[in-house]
């Protein structure tokens, strides 16, 4: 027996090419497969408001949110259904559902999603909801400044319901061990970082690995903290301003002094949480409820004071997550009624301690379940008033911010900075060019 005597199998050229073409078309199908996206579920019947929500916290959150949504009973007998949409490819899920008229009537979603769909004429403005909130007193309950970013020339694009705030956290025992004071400005941040390094900890904890946007947020936060930002006051791209260059030169100084973990460029959020839990992270930008997130509620992880930039600026960034209404609804009145109802029930989520974000209503921040945590109180008192959006120095949110947050240009920029691979101006120039190519005029 030899190679040529091996039985000839039924293997035709045509059959083979067909198989190959089918297998090779996978990337095409993956890239454009809008038709296979989730169509959502439950309750598309007339009079039922379809509410789509994201996994904002643990599954217990979604259970509670579902319970609230399904408790809705409108004046005209309308009901609401609840559907969880996973974050993976969520924009595609929403897009394909909306295109096929099977999308939600009301939803949470990406921070800038409402503006993306507004451009496509799919958003129902929330002005009447705002009027109703004024009438029932909830309007005055909003924390200062949280509603303004959603007001466009045509009306309110969405209504905020929680604030995903970025604040500095620190591990108290590491600062005591390093015998150094908490940073109050950039020079003291540098000094604290050097002292923490001597005790084996990092003074500017961050991460830029798969799916981790904290390094992106840290970079923009440092720009905003220096009076800079991605956009100017007119909303035009303005990355190469002096304040941004100065901020990135400072971050590069932190990198060159070993204050940023050299492995941080590949850290996922889980890796970052582990660094905080294992006492490797001394200081760094993170979200609300870090002790609960990393699993260390010993009281050693605390919210730090905001720090001052070299020109006296104090600022951080915030993502005002929002609820939006769509034009495709069984009844616009029912959508509005549902949204007003849902906003009125939000306190339950904080009462049950299910949220890892700040509420948008003052009354919730005053509830004992929220205010018992001194970290929460400090964030509301010291950080919320200085929080700015990704649109800074501009004031209005817009669809382009979706391509900025999590987009390739910002990811690459952050990774370049925290690996110290380029000087500040070069990195900012590349960032600006990358953004220009994807931002819609």
């Amino acid at each position, binding site marked *: 027996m030899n190679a040529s005597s091996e039985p000839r199998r039924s293997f035709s050229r045509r059959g083979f090419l067909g198989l190959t073409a089918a297998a090779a*078309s996978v990337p095409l199908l993956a890239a454009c497969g809008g038709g296979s996206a989730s169509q959502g579920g439950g309750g598309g019947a007339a009079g039922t408001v379809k509410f789509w929500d994201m996994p904002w916290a643990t599954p217990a959150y979604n259970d509670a949110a579902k319970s609230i949504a399904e408790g809705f009973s409108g004046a005209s007998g309308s009901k609401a259904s609840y559907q969880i949409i996973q974050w993976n490819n969520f924009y595609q899920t929403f897009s394909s559902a909306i295109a096929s008229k099977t999308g939600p009537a009301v939803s949470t979603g990406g921070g800038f999603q409402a503006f993306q769909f507004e451009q496509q004429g799919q958003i129902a403005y929330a002005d009447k909801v705002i009027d109703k909130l004024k009438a029932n007193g909830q309007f005055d309950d909003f924390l200062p400044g949280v509603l303004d970013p959603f007001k466009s020339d045509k009306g309110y694009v969405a209504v905020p319901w929680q604030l995903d705030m970025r604040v500095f956290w620190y591990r108290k025992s590491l600062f005591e061990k390093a015998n150094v004071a908490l940073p109050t400005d950039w020079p003291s941040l540098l000094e604290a970082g050097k002292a923490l390094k001597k005790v084996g900890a990092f003074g500017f904890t961050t991460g830029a690995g798969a799916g981790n946007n904290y390094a992106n947020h840290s970079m923009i936060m440092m720009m905003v903290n220096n009076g800079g930002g991605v956009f100017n006051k007119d909303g035009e791209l303005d990355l190469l301003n002096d304040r941004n260059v100065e901020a990135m030169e400072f971050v590069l100084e932190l990198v060159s002094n070993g204050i940023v973990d050299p492995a941080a*460029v590949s850290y996922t959020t889980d890796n970052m949480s582990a660094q905080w839990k294992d006492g490797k992270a001394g200081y760094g930008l993170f979200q609300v409820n870090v002790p609960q997130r990393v699993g260390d509620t010993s009281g050693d992880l605390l919210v730090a004071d905001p720090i001052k930039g070299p020109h006296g600026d104090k600022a951080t960034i915030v993502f005002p997550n929002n609820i939006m209404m769509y034009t495709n609804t069984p009844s616009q009145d029912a959508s509005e009624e549902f949204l007003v109802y849902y906003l009125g029930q939000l306190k339950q989520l904080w009462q049950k301690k299910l949220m890892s974000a700040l509420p948008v209503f003052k009354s919730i921040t005053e509830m004992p379940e929220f205010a018992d945590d001194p970290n929460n109180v400090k964030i509301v008192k010291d950080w919320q008033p200085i929080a700015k959006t990704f649109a800074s120095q501009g004031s209005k949110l817009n669809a382009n911010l979706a391509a900025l947050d999590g987009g390739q240009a910002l990811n690459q920029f952050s990774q370049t900075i925290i690996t110290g691979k380029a000087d500040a101006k070069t990195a900012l120039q590349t960032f600006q060019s990358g953004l220009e190519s994807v931002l819609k005029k």
Partner: protein
Amino acid sequence: MSSTTAQSGLARARRGVAPGGSGTAPGKRKSKLSAQATRTFFWLLLPSMVLLVLIHGYPLIYAAVQATHDGDLLQTGNFVGVQNFSTVLTSPAFWKAAQFTLWFTIVGVFGSWLVGLGLALLLRTKIPAGNTFKVLLLLPWVVPIVVSSTAWNWLVATPDSLIPALFRNLGLGTPLFLADPTLASITVMAFKVWVSFPFMMMMISAALASVDTTVYEAASMDGASRWQQFTQITLPLIARSTYISWILMTIFCVNDFPTIYLLTGGGPVNATTSLVVLAYRTVFQDFATGPGVAIAFLMTMTLVVISVILYRQIRKSSVE
């Protein structure tokens, strides 16, 4: 059957008439059957053809439309011709991703083939608990990629992870397997080989099982060394399976999204960004649908060309 009936049947058979048939001339009967068969085949094939058009045709056409327009996932936008293709082809990011994809594919295909071949040959020998080993060796292929990528992440991600700690304890420094661009590329490729070798092992094991062992006995009697037996008998006999496995693994590697994306996200600084990751990020992170789909089109065309070349190699090996 009576003898009369049998003779009649034989006569009818000689004329080509089916039992109970009318006895029409064979040629005419054949063409009538052929027309009927064609109609039957058509109706039998129709559901599959409709399915194929729906499953492959529609997305392909939709993708072609998107690749030639400047729209997004919801709106088609304006027709821009081949502008998206020229944008992609003049982008350094595309060529960097193409270069990584090439290396990732070469290492993924031949690395997994070599490991799979070695293990298949080893498992062919009589070793204790061989079947248990076979099952255990399949685990990397069987375990969901999300689980294995998480496990690999925890093995290498931080300086205190198991593998960097091991290197440190051996006095080899603290390598940052996912943070250093070169090491991250090597790690991702090693992960791909680890995930893929069981597939290769299975393919080669199946091919080896069909090889007649007397061939080796004859070769031994003729004085052929083990190496000569391997290169002159084993490799040629498994050549067809090898080429098929290379084609399939090439397609798996070029299209591989989760292995890379879950482990490094394409970083650091795009060091491990393959074409499929770039296409995904372009469409879903930059919301630039046209260029993203153009990348996917270029990938598909390249894959078809590679597959045709390898298919010719298979035919050649069959003829030989």
